[in-house]
């Protein structure tokens, strides 16, 4: 009987390993499996597009890497990287000290302010006092959540956490939240939609706190993979220098998203 079990176990193992993706060299680039316009969002044919997808394509082409976009759940994106389900994270992930304890980052490839939107007509200011007694939605394990936990929650703001940014936006439109804190660009993209136009407006940027918000967004990498990190850094610099970066950025933004 034990023999039969062993045979079964081996058969199962082979069945699983047999279906392993054929191209082992292709790097799997993790993005959060949620619409996050204008950076990454699926279109109606199931293809992912947006500024960050163009950045990935340009960067990988420059570094001569074969990259495959792989959607994963945002709340498990770091474990997915460390357990080798994916090889890179290009998903608007800010470089923070907290994350640097677990993973490594390339140099930043964009940096935008952090802002707050709220339902129209409500008197909301992006300050602890201006949000007192209101409910504020943030996406889990983002710099915005860390910022809200540090500055807003102690000041009597009801901070609610969401698995995806899209859910937070939707609950704001549905009247379940008073305000949402997130990346200013992503929020403005939401305000440009029919749903966003109807319900909400921009209440302003939050005060800076580099210790929490970090110097910008970088490519997430496993620790110790310096060769890949060097390639990525060189490619980011190259597409900045040769104008590719500006070319595809102009399609999405009328300002320099790279920041200072």
């Amino acid at each position: 009987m034990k023999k039969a079990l062993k045979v079964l176990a081996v058969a199962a193992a082979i069945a699983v390993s047999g279906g392993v993706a054929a191209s082992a060299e292709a790097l799997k680039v993790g993005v959060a499996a949620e619409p996050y316009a204008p950076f990454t969002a699926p279109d109606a044919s199931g293809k992912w597009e947006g500024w960050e997808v163009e950045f990935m394509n340009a960067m990988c082409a420059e570094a001569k890497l074969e990259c495959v976009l792989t959607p994963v759940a945002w709340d498990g994106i770091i474990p997915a990287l460390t357990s080798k389900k994916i090889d890179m994270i290009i998903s608007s992930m800010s470089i923070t000290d907290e994350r640097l304890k677990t993973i490594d980052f390339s140099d930043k490839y964009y940096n935008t302010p952090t802002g707050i939107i709220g339902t129209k007509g409500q008197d909301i200011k992006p300050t602890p006092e201006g949000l007192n007694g209101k409910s504020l939605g943030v996406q889990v394990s983002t710099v915005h959540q860390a910022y809200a936990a540090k500055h807003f929650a102690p000041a009597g703001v009801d901070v609610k956490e969401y698995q995806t940014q899209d859910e937070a936006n939707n609950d704001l439109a549905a009247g379940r939240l008073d305000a949402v804190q997130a990346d200013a660009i992503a929020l403005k993209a939401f305000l440009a939609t029919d749903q966003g136009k109807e319900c909400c407006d921009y209440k302003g940027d939050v005060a800076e706190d580099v210790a929490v918000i970090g110097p910008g967004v970088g490519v997430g990498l496993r620790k110790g993979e310096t060769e890949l990190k060097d390639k990525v850094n060189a490619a980011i610099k190259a597409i900045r220098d040769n104008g590719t970066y500006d070319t595809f950025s102009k399609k999405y933004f009328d300002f320099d998203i790279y920041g200072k």
Partner: protein
Amino acid sequence: MAADSLVNWGLLSLSAPGWGGVLLQGFFNSIQIAVGGFTLGLALGVGGAFGKLYGGPVLRDLLECYTTVVRAVPELVLILLLYYAGTDLLNQVLALVAIGPVDISGLMAGIFVIGVVQGAYSTEVLRGAIKAVPAGQIEAARAYGMSPTMVLRRITLPAMLPYAIPGLSNLWLIATKDTALLAVVGFSELTLVTRQAAGTTKAYLLFFLAAGALYLALTLVSNVFIGMLERHARRGLAVNR
């Protein structure tokens, strides 16, 4: 928003402006995982059931632990554990057997996760079914001088089928619905693509209802086949039940 354009059916059309194609692709992924997971679970279940009935005391206890844990812990938690830790572990085992570390594609990880959960369930179903086979039939086979494997192949497996099919068909329906939980780990099956489509277009009700119809259709079609299978397996058996 709701009143003036009642329902925008165009959103469901199969080609580009509509999301129907994406939904069907996700549905196809769900079915693939359900089929794969159910099959893997069945293989584990056959081994587990025989191990529990005829195995040594240690094997029996280990299998008891396996089925107890799976039946006492929510599928959602198991799926997270197996998805992150289980595939990691499997990789290390494969590395030990010198196949080398392989990266497990999303689909395979999904099948593995559902399969391990289903394995515990089908162990229990099959164990009950094997126990329901009249002992006299097996003894008669032995008396004819059949070897244990032949008894298994010619008597035990075919004779237990009528008892196992109702339970196994329920497990199949559970497998199809459990695939939805993979949405939580970001796997592009029907429920997750539905939510992405709904989130992008803001037509939440339309897409969730459409996905519900697809799941329901799968269940109903399955029920028709299960009914045929049950009638076929039960032929020659006393009708009272």
